[in-house]
């Protein structure tokens, strides 16, 4: 069961720099570790993270990419990412994680910019 925590301010002033935080539950198994029985644990990584912004009123739009990251084996389990955005207009932030074994998780959060 995948769980994520995303933190986005509910409201922001136009032009304000806001901090976005995202944590997702994932083992980030490197593929180099062995189990207590000595078997190699298969690699299971999140490979890509992205955050897109869909402006209010453009619900059918896929939005604009505002942040993206490529993740690798050296990143700890349950990876935490934080980044800053300049609030320009109201809309929805859509977060997406993708990885090995068809892993995919999506969250979306609405934000009002006044």
């Amino acid at each position: 069961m995948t769980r994520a925590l995303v933190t986005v301010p509910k409201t922001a002033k136009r032009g304000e720099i806001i901090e976005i935080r995202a944590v997702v539950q994932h083992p980030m198994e490197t593929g180099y570790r062995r189990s207590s029985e000595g078997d190699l644990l298969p690699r299971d990584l999140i490979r890509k993270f992205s955050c897109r912004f869909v402006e209010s009123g453009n619900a059918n739009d896929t939005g604009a990419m505002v942040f993206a990251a490529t993740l690798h084996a050296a990143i700890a389990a349950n990876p935490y990412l934080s980044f800053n955005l300049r609030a320009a207009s109201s809309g929805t932030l859509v977060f997406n994680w993708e990885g090995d074994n068809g892993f995919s998780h999506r969250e979306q959060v609405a934000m009002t910019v006044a």
Partner: protein
Amino acid sequence: MWRTSVATVMLFALMSLTQAQDARKSGFDFMRPATQALQMDDTQNPGMLWVKDGQMTWAQKDGAANKSCTDCHGDINRMRGVAARYPQYSLVAKRVINLGQQINQCRTTQQQAKVWPTEHPTFLGLEAAITMESRGQPVTPPSQPLLADAQKRGETLFNQRIGQVDLSCRDCHDSLAGKRLGGNTIPQAHPTGYPIYRLEWQSVGSLQRRLRGCMTAVRAEPYPYGSTELVDLEAYLAMRAAGMRLESPGVRP
């Protein structure tokens, strides 16, 4: 006028007395600032992922009775203060049980579902979500004769030397607390943060998992999960930490 000042002086004297006497510190106080920051901020604390899972599970119907925790207990915030009392004597089980065992008791007798397996992530999440409702509250073991017996047995275990290394829990957690063991600082072994997110585990784990880890570290055979010995130790640790504030989900190195 002088009455108030005498009272004030006495109050101050009393306060400094209790402060001087209470040398107890949570494991939190021994951690590096970065790890402390991770625990303090619910938007970063990975333990919150488990809590979120637990909060959702609270409202889900399950078992042959097709009931959710909400159906009988209402909103999870009604659990405020509950975790601060555990382990405690249960009239239903007729023995001292910890919070996890109480949850499993409701699961089998009330929901008529299967017990959660040991360290199951959803089970830990449920326990952490319930414990979080008591965040900031003092540990308050009830006074029950059979709980007092468990605390006494737990204290004996705490003082007993174990393993090839031949050390007792007290040797490390009283005499050597604050000193370093390998890369780790030895804490005073207070159970206030459990279930915790442990960086070394890269996951949430129970107090029993932690205790078993200490036993393995001194090359003793750990007591099985759910054993009376582990619950007795938990009961003693809660008594030893009485009055300290709960902080679950704690983060530990």
